[in-house]
């Protein structure tokens, strides 16, 4: 009888992180890259929750809250930057963004 242990969750989180990293590397659309960052952040959250259960401590779940808030703030600012860049260059591809002066 196989038992679901903490290792399995950690492996799943590692796979999710790798997929997010891979997407971050191969995609050019800034929006999709943001989604891949979300994938990586969620992989880290999964490790926090798994460790929280493993060690019987609630602090891991509180760390997840902070990651969640930082991710939300990051998405808000990042998407605002994408929108304002799109107004100037009418493209969301990161390859055309070689100017970062205001």
């Amino acid at each position, binding site marked *: 009888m196989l*038992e*679901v*242990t*903490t*290792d399995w*969750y*950690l492996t*799943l989180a*590692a*796979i*999710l992180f*790798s*997929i*997010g*990293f*891979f*997407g971050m*590397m*191969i*995609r*050019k*659309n800034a*929006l*999709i890259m943001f*989604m*891949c960052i*979300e*994938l990586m952040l*969620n992989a880290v*959250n*999964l490790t926090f*929750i798994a460790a*929280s*259960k*493993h060690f*019987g401590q*609630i*602090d891991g*779940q509180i760390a*997840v*809250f*902070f990651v*969640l*808030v930082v*991710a*939300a*703030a990051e998405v*808000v*600012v990042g*998407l*605002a930057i*994408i*929108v*304002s860049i*799109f*107004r100037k260059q009418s*493209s*969301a*591809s990161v*390859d055309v963004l070689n100017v970062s002066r205001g």
Partner: protein
Amino acid sequence: MFELLIFFLPASLLIIGALIVVFAKNPVHNAMGLVMTLVSLAIIYITLNATFVAMVQMLVYAGAVMTLFLFVIMMIGVDKKEQTSDSIKGQTFLVSGVFLILMSLLAYVAVNSEFSWNLWFPAVEYVVEGTPQLIAGTLFTTWIFPFEIISILLIVATAAAIALAYDSKIRNKDA
């Protein structure tokens, strides 16, 4: 048997959703893949006794953050052609190679290694249920200072988003 099912069903949905995020061409499909990933992650959180975090995950991620993503997709359009050529020569090939090596290493460690998380760090016997009461009790005592700082971060992020997305040209034309 049920325990295995409740792990592998959300886990496979999670990986399928993540692959949709990476490989779909239409940004709306990518966003839907991300929703799939986040919802299956919330299910996994519930199986890990983190019920409140699962709820917050659904509200904040699958609700608010995804709405924001879809809103921006709506603003900048979905039909824009993504440039597919590599800006660095052989970039995609190189990254795929590195990715495959990493994944095979990971598979080797997961299947074949002597390392067992349980052996090195023994699991506790009792179960901690992530109820709102327990989380609030720790969050507002031990973690109160980071909590206050995070509120400043949110205000700064809101102000920054307004300042960045504000278009003075359009604004002045209307007025």
